[in-house]
């Protein structure tokens, strides 16, 4: 890897007094080891809504699922599913 500082952005930022900005993406999930992450997207979307339903919107760990599906899923899919949820026609089990 060309970048050998282990993703540590803090040094440069500390000097300018800004907040540390970490660049991250969805971590590896052994449930979905292949290149095709469609299932990962969909299951995270379902898990987010189930988490909200089971624990309430303020439960912090639910945000993990939201970050995952916002990164992985095409925005058009997320918009379509949320519309379906509001209309009561969403096919998944929440």
């Amino acid at each position: 890897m060309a970048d050998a500082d282990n993703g540590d952005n803090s040094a440069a930022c500390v000097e300018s007094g800004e907040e540390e900005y970490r660049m991250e993406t969805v971590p590896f999930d052994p449930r979905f080891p292949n290149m095709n992450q469609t299932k990962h997207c969909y299951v995270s979307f379902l898990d987010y809504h189930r988490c909200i339903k089971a624990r309430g919107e303020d439960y912090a760990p639910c945000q993990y699922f939201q970050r995952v599906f916002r990164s992985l899923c095409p925005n058009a899919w997320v918009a379509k599913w949320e519309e379906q949820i509001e209309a009561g026609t969403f096919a998944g089990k929440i």
Partner: protein
Amino acid sequence: MRLTRLLRFSAKPPKQDPAQDWRWKFSGLTWKDMKKHYAIIPIYVMTIIAGGMAGGYVYRLASKHPEVSWTKANPEPWNDYRARQYKFVSSGRDYSKGSSAPPYK
């Protein structure tokens, strides 16, 4: 010449002992034939190994694949792989940490 060949091709086989008729059509299935034509043995061995590998792979897919479920009691079979590896070769991925998804239920 062609006509003779055509007629001979469509003619009945020469009369033989009826018990031997099936062998006249399919030779190579009995031990005796294999001893006579040794070259057929590697063919059988390789075919059985190849068929076994193909069948074994399909069985592994059916029994262990993270997206295969045979009962209603297991609607989300990928959850069994939160910390397990299914692929034989996974190119240096670290499976020891397991899934980062928090268990919220």
